[in-house]
C-alpha cells in the first residue's frame, strides 16, 4: 500500500478493530481500496495504451527453443522400428 494516501489514517484506524476477538477471515475477498480514486499514473497500466505495457506479461504457451533437437533424438530412440514406415508414406 502507498505511504502517501490521504486515507491512510482511516486505514490504520481499522486495525485495532481487526484484532478484536473474532477476526473476519476474509481470505479471498476483494479489499476496499485505501483511496477512492487515483490518477491514471497510479493505475496498473499507466499510459492508457491498450496493449503496449501488457504484452510482456503474457507469453505464448509453447517454446521453440533448442530442446527441439533433443526431442527429435528422443523420439527416434523411442521408435527405432518406425523410421521405415515414415519413409514409406511419401
Amino acid at each position, binding site marked *: 500500500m502507498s505511504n502517501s494516501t490521504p486515507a491512510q489514517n482511516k486505514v490504520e484506524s481499522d486495525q485495532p478493530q481487526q484484532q478484536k476477538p473474532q477476526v473476519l477471515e476474509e481470505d479471498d475477498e476483494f479489499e476496499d481500496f485505501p483511496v477512492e480514486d487515483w490518477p491514471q499514473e497510479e493505475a496498473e497500466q499507466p499510459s492508457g495504451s491498450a496493449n503496449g505495457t501488457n504484452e510482456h506479461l503474457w507469453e505464448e*504457451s509453447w517454446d521453440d527453443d533448442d530442446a527441439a533437437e533433443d526431442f527429435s533424438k528422443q523420439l527416434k530412440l523411442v521408435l527405432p522400428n518406425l523410421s521405415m514406415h515414415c519413409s514409406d508414406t511419401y
Partner: protein
Amino acid sequence: MGTLATEFRIAYNNGSGPGLAAVLTPIATRDDPDRLLSFYNFSNPAYLTKDLNSSFFHGKNPRVPKAEQHAWVDIFAAYWEAVGEILKWEAGHPGASAVAIFNAWKKVANAVIRGYSVQSGLPAWSLPCLYTVGKFLRTFAIKADLQVASQGSSGLDFQEEVAADFEKNATLEDAARVINRMFTLCLSDRAPIEESRKWGIYNTTNLLFKTYFKINSVGLTKNLIRAIKAQSDDLPPLDAFPKSHIVTFEYYLGVIHFLDENYAEAEEHLTNAWRLCYRHANKNRELILTYLIPCHLVTTHTLPSNQLLAPFPRLEKLFRPLSNCIRTGDLVGFDKAMSAGEEEFVKRRIYLPLERGRDIALRNLFRKVFIAGGFEEAKDGQPPIRRTRVPVAEFAAALRIGTHATGRTRVDMDEVECLLANLIYKGLMKGYIARERGIVVLSKNNSAFPGTGV
C-alpha cells in the same frame, strides 16, 4: 459528543461526504481512542434527541433544511444506541452480543435509508455515509453469524445441526436485504445527474456482490446486473466513476462470468479491472490475476510471464509449475502439478479451466513431433515445406515420452487416435487422420497448429 458534533459540522460545512462518513464510522481512531466512549457519555436516552439537535444544528451553522436535520438526528440517535452496544461488547459486559450490535446498527442503516428517501432529505454528496453504514452492517452481520454458530453448535442433534447449517448466514442474509434497499435507493433516484444518488450505484452493487458471494448466492447477482443494464441509458459512463468503484465492479463481474464458464467475457472484465487497479493494492491485484490467468489459458492459450508472477509468491506457487509443464508438454508433470494444487484450485474455483491446460500441454507435445519431423525436400527454389504427413506412431512415441512411460507400458494406438481427434475437434490441430495408412495429414501453410506459427 462535543468532538463528534464538531467533526460533523466541519464535514458538513465543507460539503465533504467522506468527512461525514468518517464521523459515522463506528470505530475509534488512533488520534482519538476514546471517540466512541466520549460520544456515548455525552448524552442519555431521555435527552438524546435534544442534545443531538442542539450540538449539531444550533446557531444555524450549518444551515440545514428541517427535514434533513430530522434525518441526521434520527441517524445519530440510532448511532448512539449502536455505539452503546459496541462499548458494552468491548467492555465484556454480560448482556453484550454481536447480534445486539447488528440489530442496533441495522436501525442506523434504516434511518439512513429513510433519510435519503424522504422529500428534501439527505443530499447525494453525503452518499459515502450510505457506503460506510452498509459496509459495517455487513461486517457486524458476519460477526453476529459467527457468534451464533460458535454458541449453537454444541449439543445439537443431527436435525438441529442441519437446521443450524441452513441458518448459519441468517444475519448476513438479513443484511443483504437492507443493502439491497440501498442499491434500489441509488438506482431509482430521478434527480438530475449532478445531484443524483446514481453515483452510488456501483459502490452499493459491489457491497451486495461481496455479500452474495459470502452467503453463497452468486446467482442473485444476476438480478443486480440485469437491473443495472435496464437503467444503463440513465447512468453516467463507467469511466466517470471513481476507479475504486469500477475496479471492484469489474472484478466481480469478471468472476461471475468466470464461474459461469464464460471465459471470454470474464477475461474482458478482469482485464479492465487489472488495467485500472491501484498499483499499490497488492491483495486485489493478486485476486484479479488469480482469475485472469486461467482465463488467458482458456481463451488465448497464453501463460503468465515471470515478470507478471514475480511480485506474487502465492501466484508463483499456484501457477508456475503448471505453466512450465504446459509449455514443455510434460503431461506427467502437469498431472502432478494439478493434484498438488488441487485443494487450492478447488477452493479458488479455478480447477476446471486450469484442467483445460492439459490439452494445451498435449498440443505442445504433438507440435514438437511436427517440428521434429523436419522439412520436405524443397522444390526448385521454393521455400521448404514442413513434412505434413506424420505417422500416428510418432505421436504415440511422443506420448510415451510425455507420460514418462517405461519400456513395457504400451501406448494404445486407439487412444492416440482419440487424443488426436480431440485436439483436431477443439481446433488446436488442423488436419485429419488417415486411419488405413496410419498417418495424420496435417494442414499446410503454417496452420497445422493454429496460432503457434507452424
